[in-house]
């Protein structure tokens, strides 16, 4: 494949300069944050000596550890459910024709387009209303908590998984599936042995995106959280509003490292995509 016409002279030099600026803009804040997380001083701006003190405090902080556990529970549940449901939705939209398909397509796009704040408001009112009805009908008093957070995360994650898997299905050659069908494979065997391995990079990519979105969400979660169900980003957000502290720097660095692991994982799956197709 031909690569672009590479500009020469002044234009090229301006392009290079702009790229350096953008990369510096991307990375300088992140590095400053990581750097200061190793500062011994309680006052973030004043550098005294390097230490791991704040990491130690972080692991001993019950609130941090509890909210980390909550985050992982919600992320695991919402990723697994959304990946299965989202993949089925993607298959139905790309491989079949049925009545109501366009409505389903539109319904799947909405959670991606809608702003977080609106989504947060929607979920809060929904649960308040649903709990009211439950209390009236069965006398059960339900509460906002990990359950309502997981249900909300699944609602936005299904759409993102479906978009990623659909992209993979759309660019995929269907010859192999047809060949399997011609060779008397049952529909389930064709799916298990041919379709699923082929779309696996897409499914994995979608699952990673769902995991990231769930671990990052602040707005929706802070609306539908209840007593004792704080997730890590919501907890950190509460601290950040009060001001800068070295403890937050350490927690933030931990979260950045987790994101980099996810990037590495997604690159690994992309590599697999290339060799598979």
């Amino acid at each position, binding site marked *: 494949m031909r690569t672009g016409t590479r500009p020469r002279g002044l234009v090229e030099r301006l392009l290079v300069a702009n790229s350096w600026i953008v990369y510096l*803009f991307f990375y300088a804040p992140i590095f*400053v944050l990581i750097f200061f997380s190793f500062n011994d001083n309680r006052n973030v701006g004043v550098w005294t000596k390097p230490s791991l003190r704040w990491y130690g405090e972080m692991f001993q902080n019950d609130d941090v550890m509890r909210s980390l556990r909550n985050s992982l529970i919600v992320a695991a549940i919402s990723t697994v459910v959304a990946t299965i449901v989202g993949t*089925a*939705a993607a298959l139905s939209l790309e491989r079949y024709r049925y009545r109501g398909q366009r409505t389903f397509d539109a319904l799947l796009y909405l959670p991606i*387009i809608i702003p977080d704040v*609106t989504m947060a408001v929607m979920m809060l009112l929904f649960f308040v209303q649903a709990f009211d009805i439950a209390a009236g009908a069965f006398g059960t008093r339900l509460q906002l908590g990990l359950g309502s957070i997981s249900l909300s995360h699944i609602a936005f994650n*299904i759409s993102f998984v479906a978009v990623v898997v659909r992209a993979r299905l759309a660019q995929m050659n269907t010859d192999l599936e047809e060949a399997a069908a011609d060779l008397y494979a049952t529909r389930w065997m064709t799916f298990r042995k041919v379709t699923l391995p082929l779309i696996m990079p897409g499914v994995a990519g979608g699952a990673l995106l769902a995991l990231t979105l769930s671990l990052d969400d602040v707005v929706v979660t802070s*609306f539908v959280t209840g007593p004792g169900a704080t997730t890590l980003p919501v907890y950190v957000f509460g601290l950040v*509003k009060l001001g800068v502290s070295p403890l937050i*720097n350490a927690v933030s660095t931990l979260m950045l490292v987790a994101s980099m692991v996810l990037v590495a994982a997604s690159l690994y799956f992309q590599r697999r995509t290339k060799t598979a197709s």
Partner: protein
Amino acid sequence: MAGRFVEGSRRVSIDTGPVTPALEHAAEKAARRRGLRLALPGFSYLTFFFALPLVIVFVYSFATRSATGRTLLEGWNLESYRRLANPLVLEIAWRSLWLAVLATVICLVLAYPFSYFIATRGPVLRNVLLVLVMIPFWSNFLVRTYAWRVLLGSDGPVSRLTEFLGLGETRILFTPTAVLIGLVYGFLPFMVLPLYASIERIDWSLVEASRDLYASGWQSFRRVTWPLSRPGVIAGSILVFIPSLGAYVTPEILGGAKTTLLGSYIVTQFLAARNWPFGSAMSFAVMAVMLAATLIYFRSGAKTL
């Protein structure tokens, strides 16, 4: 239909005799049923946990707020929508719109040459440069915004630097400028990736052809490269504009009392002021603006986000 495998439309029964229209019809019907079965879990989940909540917000926006802040589902009225014309609300809406437009334009100006640069490198360098964009893209948004609070703080590195240079202390934190920096920083990757995707797909022989026909560098950019990359420009702009307009986390961390934006104002109606009908009406209005923006985007010829 080329290359697309639509079950039931091509493959019919394998081991029986002649293919009758009745058999074909039955196969099509079976395939439709299978498609519906696959769609059912997602469709019912989103109907119950997304469409229904949306309807509830709409209903609440016509409800009454009691003196104690409780929402009464009676005495339906348009009061909340009338309040949208309140000067304070209009000021906040205007500020949000202005900041969102500015953030989108700055992102575009930074990202276009940047994406062009990446797309015109050799394959190896290009992959490395792309990974360096993916890392901030996947990193936690809250953490990245918080990093600017550390940078811009009164004893932070930026202030130290300007003091050292004899420019005095910088006081950007808690101003609209800080919010703008946060928005650009937060959403720049959303501009870069679609732009890169569309520039990378350009058929460069068209650009060469224009140069062969004596177009200047600027002319061939204006007439060939730019129009061909427009889907990326539009996709990126929507992806930056929509979250910027509804931003809540960024103004909350980097802004001050005078930089309330629509997102934070809506949240206040729910968590502090307890005026749910008004908050619902505002959420609905913001969503309508965004849907309109997205429709314009799809009308402009794009098929997917």
